[in-house]
């Protein structure tokens, strides 16, 4: 366990910027099922390697670490000597450390034909342009 302590500290230190800046898809309202795991930026959590998958797993709660923003505590799952996953057990409710959750409003898709000046759409080919709304707008003039 002694050797593990620096690992926890490093893990917590490494997680804080991720936790602060990575917008988790899992926290977006109604964006997708809650079971979808948030994307983990590469290099922040060691993925279990194929060779270690057979080794036994061990879940260890980390020590609580006090920072100027509050107390953080993680839980680490080891597979053999490797960290397989890290989970946040405790995190402070501080405005600067909240998940950067962008608010998204869910609406129903509608089709309309309103007065418009121009159309934004997926890049249209010169061939597709002939039958496009934009071609009609260009032809109409002002």
């Amino acid at each position: 366990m002694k050797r593990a302590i620096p690992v926890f500290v490093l893990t917590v230190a490494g997680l804080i910027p991720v936790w602060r800046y990575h917008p988790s898809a899992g926290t977006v309202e109604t964006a997708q099922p809650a079971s979808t795991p948030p994307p983990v930026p590469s290099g922040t959590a060691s993925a279990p390697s194929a060779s270690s998958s057979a080794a036994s797993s061990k879940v260890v709660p980390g020590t609580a670490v006090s920072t100027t923003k509050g107390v953080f505590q993680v839980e680490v799952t080891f597979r053999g000597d490797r960290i397989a996953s890290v989970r946040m057990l405790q995190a402070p409710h501080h405005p600067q450390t909240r998940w950067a959750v962008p608010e998204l409003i869910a609406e129903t898709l509608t089709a309309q034909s309103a007065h418009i000046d121009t159309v934004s759409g997926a890049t249209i080919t010169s061939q597709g342009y002939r039958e496009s709304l934009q071609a009609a707008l260009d032809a109409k003039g002002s």
Partner: protein
Amino acid sequence: MRRVEHVMGFPVSLRIDDEGDFGAAADEVFAWLRRVDARFSPFKSGSEVSRYGRGELAEDELSADLREVLGLCERYRSATGGAFDVRLAGRGLDPCAVVKGWSVQRAAGLLAAAGARRFCLNAGGDVVVSGGPWRVGIRHPEQADRVCSVLAVTDAAVATSGRYERGDHILDGRTGRPATGLLSLTVVAPTLTEADTTATAAFALGADGPAWAAARPGCEVFAVDTARRVLRTPGLPVA
């Protein structure tokens, strides 16, 4: 004045509502875009991009413009955890996704420098406007002759990514497979460089894309997922 020309394989529509003669400025815009096509197209074997991709040019031999574009590519690659990648395995260097927005934003700069204040430049569906508000429709992802939202846009840019025009051309760099999860994703941002690249990168991220794009500073988002549900940011300038 209005003008439409085909450059880089897509139509570019320019409308300038200011009084005066902006013919020379318009000429300059289309000449610049044609120059960009010659220099940065990965489909032209003699372009700077193709030569760099084949290793015929060293990094210190690159033009300042290409270095700027490659810098933008790298910034978005790292911001998306690799989902947005202009160097996919089995493909040569293809910075098109960045070059388009970047070059059209530059073109808008040429118009502004020539004194135009009220114009709308639409490059194959990606839009930069000066002055306003301009009513910018977002094409319905499944009905080509309909829009699914109308935005009131002033001094800003709007870009949309989707697969309904050119199929599965956007790959998720993390898997190398076509991006899934979204029908289309539109970004409104202060510049087209930001709007276009963010829209493409977010589309590559799939279901995670709308939240990722919404978290980028200055970006408003309108996305349609494969369940035909709209996800948009509260700040989107809906007309």
